[in-house]
């Protein structure tokens, strides 16, 4: 069997050129992967709140029109208020009796903020009387892991991840706002939905909501309310699974996706140009070599085969090096940024690795254009010397 042209000879003898290409491929791999790790942690972290939280609790802030109670129909405010309160109480009772709903209560909420690498996400923290808190924790599968249960007005339990995220510790004031130091953290809890809960302080809240203790079969609060005869209008706010997810897609998903796609395209275009220019340059420098091979009896197919194997070696090394440094970089990002900030993320994202591999395969495909062009320029040495 006749021997092939070795693809390793070039690699062994041109370490600098090979190193430039391999480094470019590896760094581009790392850039695409690291950016993905940093940004996707935002999506993943917020997903805990967006997906898990509404499986347990939904919120509804309904105006009087939703109950069919109009102010103009009553002479005095007291009359109107009495009917409105009665309707609201009736709705709460109906909700409590609905299958799959453990409880419902009309209570105040404050907002909590989950800060990620890119942007932040705000969600509700219900405020209730201390005696109701154990029931709430039981419903949301939350456990007190440190500190004590709230007993006094203005005491709150904060999820351990959110505490890490906000660099809080037990005893700290939570959410200093225009009212000053208003809520004190007395304990930390652990739950899948990153729940927090507290006792009202009497003056600081973000509104009154009907807090519904639903389960996974009753996450469509809007549907349930409509079935109960509630006429939802623009001024009404219902935060159920669908609404959370809609807001998440709009405020987080679409933004992150578009940033990821844009960065991916920029890196790819930069890489494609770099690799094309470098590759064309190093092939052009080797035309005489290819001509020698053709002269001493190697066919174009054999020369092309060697070019492909050389390309495969370069991309193989570039990809392997890229994968290694990417995972290393992801580990560092995870250990020094994601984990300490109480964010959720991973080191290995298979889909992104496959996406980059696919892109590199595509790049190898694009490189066939200059390779085939160079192949057409190969002559035997007699043509060079003529």
């Amino acid at each position, binding site marked *: 069997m006749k021997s092939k042209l070795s693809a390793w000879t070039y690699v062994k003898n041109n370490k600098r050129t090979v190193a430039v290409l391999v480094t470019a491929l590896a760094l581009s791999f790392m850039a695409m992967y690291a950016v993905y790790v940093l940004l996707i942690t935002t999506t993943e972290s917020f997903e805990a709140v967006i997906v898990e939280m509404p499986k347990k609790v939904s919120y509804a802030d309904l105006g009087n029109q939703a109950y069919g109670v109009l102010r103009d129909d009553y002479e005095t405010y007291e009359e109107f208020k009495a009917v409105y309160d009665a309707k609201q109480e009736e709705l709460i009772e109906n909700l409590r009796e609905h299958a799959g709903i453990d409880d419902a209560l009309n209570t105040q909420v404050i907002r909590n903020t989950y800060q990620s690498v890119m942007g932040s996400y705000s969600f509700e923290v219900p405020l209730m009387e201390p005696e109701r808190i154990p029931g709430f924790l039981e419903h949301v599968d939350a456990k007190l892991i440190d500190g004590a249960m709230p007993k006094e007005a203005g005491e709150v339990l904060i999820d351990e991840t959110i505490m890490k995220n906000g660099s809080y510790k037990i005893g700290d004031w939570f959410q200093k706002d225009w009212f000053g130091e208003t809520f004190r953290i007395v304990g930390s809890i652990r739950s899948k939905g990153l729940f927090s809960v507290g006792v009202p302080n009497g003056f600081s809240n973000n509104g009154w909501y009907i807090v519904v203790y639903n389960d996974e079969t009753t996450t469509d609060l809007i549907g349930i309310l409509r079935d109960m005869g509630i006429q939802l209008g623009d001024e009404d706010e219902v935060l159920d699974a669908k609404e959370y997810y809609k807001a998440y897609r709009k405020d987080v998903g679409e933004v992150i996706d578009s940033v990821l796609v844009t960065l991916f395209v920029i890196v790819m275009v930069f890489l494609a140009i770099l690799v094309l220019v470098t590759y064309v340059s190093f092939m052009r420098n080797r035309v005489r070599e290819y001509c020698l091979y053709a002269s001493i009896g190697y066919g174009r197919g054999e020369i092309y085969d060697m070019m492909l194997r050389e390309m495969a070696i370069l991309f193989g090394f570039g990809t392997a090096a890229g994968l290694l440094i990417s995972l290393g970089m992801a580990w560092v990002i995870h250990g020094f940024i994601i984990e300490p900030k109480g964010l959720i993320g991973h080191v290995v994202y298979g889909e992104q690795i496959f996406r980059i591999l696919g892109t590199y395969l595509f790049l190898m495909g694009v490189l066939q254009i200059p390779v085939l062009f160079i192949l057409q320029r190969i002559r035997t040495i007699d043509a060079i*010397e003529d």
Partner: protein
Amino acid sequence: MFEVKNICMIYDMNTDVKTYALKGFDLSLPEKGLIGIIGPSGSGKSTLMYCLSTLKTPTEGSIVYNGKELTSIGNAQRESLRRREFGFIFQKHYLVPYMTAMDNCLVAAMKKDAEVQKKAESFFQDLGLSQKEWHKKPAKLSGGQCQRVAIARAMINNPKVIFADEPTASLDHENAFNVMKILKKYSRERLVLVVTHDRSILQDADQIIEMWDGEISK
């Protein structure tokens, strides 16, 4: 070994003034021996060598090599012949710049095993290349050393014919003499065709073909 009939090579076929590199002559070459093809620049000696070695196809005429008509065979057969049965020494050595002398020699080898490696080492020794030069790249070798590597590359498959185009053009007198001595030795068993315009290197030639203006003059 070669039977050439009425070989004709015309350049610029599509123009009004045609250039005849070879003007239609017959030639017969033996199976072994050192054959010199001599003539001034433009006499057609290199064209003749390239036609015989399948690198060029003559416009007219026939070249029969060991009973095979070379003018009508396909590319794959031409490549196979060049690879298996012919060896080439070009005017410029055409060594691959990034390869060592050894790699440059082995690049033409049909097999790349320990036996071939030993053979290359033996050629290098015979050609006067010291062991430390085997692993040097062409830029670190003198012109004579590069040409000797090219000779070793041409001989690595024990070809039936070696085509040498001005093999001593870039060498001093001593190196030129040594190269011709090696080729003479090889020609005891095989055919070596040397194209040159320097008659002095053909002192030991078994036959000299003189060319002039695309024809054999002697």
